[in-house]
């Protein structure tokens, strides 16, 4: 079978940088061509910031790996120009069922309200995700945007300087050196950059093993997330089932701690497990098998001078809740515009510190959620299991216990409450779009609100007169005026009971500040604050 993950997509090719007498300096070098590094590269290239991506491999990731991509990730991908192919290829879902033993205890719906362009989730193999990103990078290259991916380039040494980073790179044709004004480490949980710089990565280890069996099977199970606590086919443990494109199904079995990992990966052993779960006559093929353990941990800081960590290199969570890849994409989303402004000299270097603070806030929320899910799914003490089982028993009969059933709190974007870039709020406006929150999608007649937001700062005026502006305080911005008649969702999400509102929205579509009237001085102050100048 000719799989996409067997095919080189960015094979090693000699760069002119390898033949210079002195190391070439680049504004941004990204290490790691995974979902996070590629998202950052696309974002920077779209804004004309030259970016070089280095990866020691030359292919998309092997095996399905991350498969659940959340609505906010899809909205970010839309901004990056590659949301549509992923949603088309992906399996859209929003509902799930939870089982205990042989009983179905409840069902949930992650996005019961309408008026959103993107679904709560799509399932898509990580290799397709990365492939769509690479297609987007190739399109940007054709359009003359300054982005390149160098396969077969492995960073072997990193040296911090005051205003740049020196990098030594090994290639199939020997090593060469580069300099980067900014080095972004998107090189995963085992980050070599993090190790070379001697940073700790400590946290909580969960003593449990899980088996992923991705199988190819023709089946007509509904498109939903299914989760089992203590099922007959995996007694005392948990299991998960999810649909992916190409008739691939993700099966995930909790195995316990004292097991023989190699024996559990034996195809015959895995197939026996699958048959116990789905019935002995089930026809399927194994596509990818992996046994994993996990930790919940983060770096103390996500920046170290001109080196910045994003995605799994900076933080790791349990897989319950799909908060790994999704939070990494939000890291990139948060960072790209700040790098752009700092590199252009329109914002001070200290703006980068807000990346550290906002994304640590988000990471702590993700770690808290995923740690709580893990505690519920794999109780680590006798009494923890007693309460867990009590919740599951009650949930079948009484609705009150269902919100306590925690099979993973699925990824939603963090709201940067109390964030360093937030400006004023007006209590008359709805809490869901408060400063720090990502702008909520809303239908606008034929189109959607988020696609109307510019790539930079946007002043969104709904039912309030605001003048034309193309820049303020030296920061480029655009004005989007909407009438009150634009639709019930826009009013409910942005106005509440107020007759009109003015929102300042950051380039990453998070709300920076908002008012119920036009306040030019207030807007100027908020813009200075949102760009790290106040």
């Amino acid at each position, binding site marked *: 079978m000719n799989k996409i993950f067997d095919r080189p997509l960015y094979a090693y090719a000699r760069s002119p940088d390898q033949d210079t007498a002195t190391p070439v300096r680049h504004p941004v070098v990204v290490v790691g061509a995974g979902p996070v590094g590629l998202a950052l590269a696309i974002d920077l290239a779209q804004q004309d910031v030259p970016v070089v991506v280095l990866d020691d491999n030359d292919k998309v990731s092997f095996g399905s790996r991350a498969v659940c991509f959340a609505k906010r990730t899809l909205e970010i991908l839309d901004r990056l120009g590659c949301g549509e192919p992923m949603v088309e290829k992906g399996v859209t879902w929003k509902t799930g069922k939870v089982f205990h033993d042989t009983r179905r205890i409840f069902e949930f719906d992650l996005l019961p309200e309408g008026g959103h362009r993107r679904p709560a989730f799509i399932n898509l193999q990580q290799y397709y995700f990365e492939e769509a990103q690479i297609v987007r990078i190739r399109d940007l290259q054709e359009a003359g945007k300054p982005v390149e991916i160098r396969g077969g380039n492995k960073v072997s040494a990193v040296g911090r300087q005051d205003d740049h980073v020196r990098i030594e790179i090994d290639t199939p044709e020997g090593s060469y050196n580069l300099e980067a004004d900014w080095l972004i480490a998107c090189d995963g949980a085992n980050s070599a950059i993090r190790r070379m710089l001697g940073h700790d990565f400590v946290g909580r280890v969960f003593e449990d093993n899980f088996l992923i069996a991705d199988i190819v099977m023709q089946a007509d199970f509904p498109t939903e997330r299914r989760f089992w606590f203590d099922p007959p086919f995996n007694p005392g443990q948990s299991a998960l089932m999810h649909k992916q494109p190409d008739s691939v199904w993700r099966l995930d079995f909790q195995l316990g701690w004292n097991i023989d990992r190699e024996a559990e990966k034996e195809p015959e052993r895995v197939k026996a497990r699958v048959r116990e779960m789905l019935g002995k006559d089930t026809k399927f093929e194994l596509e990818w098998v992996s046994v994993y353990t996990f930790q919940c941990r983060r770096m103390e800081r996500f920046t170290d001078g001109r080196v910045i960590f994003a995605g799994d290199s900076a933080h790791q969570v349990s897989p319950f809740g799909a908060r790994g890849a999704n939070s990494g994409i939000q890291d990139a989303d948060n960072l790209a515009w700040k790098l752009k402004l700092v590199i252009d000299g329109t914002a001070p270097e200290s703006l980068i510190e807000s990346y550290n603070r906002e994304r640590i806030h988000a990471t702590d929320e993700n770690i808290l959620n995923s740690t709580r899910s893990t505690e519920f799914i794999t109780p680590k003490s006798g*009494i923890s299991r*007693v*309460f867990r*089982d*009590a*919740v599951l*028993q*009650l949930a079948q009969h*009484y609705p*009150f*216990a269902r919100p*306590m059933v925690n099979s993973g709190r699925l990824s939603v974007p963090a709201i940067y409450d109390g964030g360093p870039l937030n400006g004023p709020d007006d209590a008359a406006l709805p809490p869901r779009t408060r400063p720090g929150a990502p702008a909520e999608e809303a239908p606008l007649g034929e189109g959607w609100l988020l696609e109307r937001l510019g790539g930079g700062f946007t002043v969104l005026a709904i039912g309030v007169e605001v003048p034309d502006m193309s820049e303020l305080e030296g920061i480029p911005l655009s004005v989007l005026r909407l009438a009150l008649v634009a639709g019930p969702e826009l009013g409910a999400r942005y106005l509440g009971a107020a007759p009109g509102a003015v929102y300042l929205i950051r380039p990453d579509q998070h709300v920076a500040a908002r008012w119920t009237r036009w306040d030019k001085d207030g807007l100027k102050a908020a813009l200075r604050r949102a760009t790290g100048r106040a």
Partner: protein
Amino acid sequence: MARLVTTPNIPDPDGFYAELVAVHDGLSAERSAALNARLILLLANQIGDRAVLSDAIAAAAKTG
């Protein structure tokens, strides 16, 4: 804000106590623990107030 009630509040203390113990008659220690857990969760939901629940957890942890 509601406070944790720590003064007598159950009209029939002897009757309630007897009923609480009787429901465990004939149960193994394991089944008793499971029943207690279900009971705590039902009662906690009845109280609902997060601050009162935290006070109750703290009060229980502090005594004994």
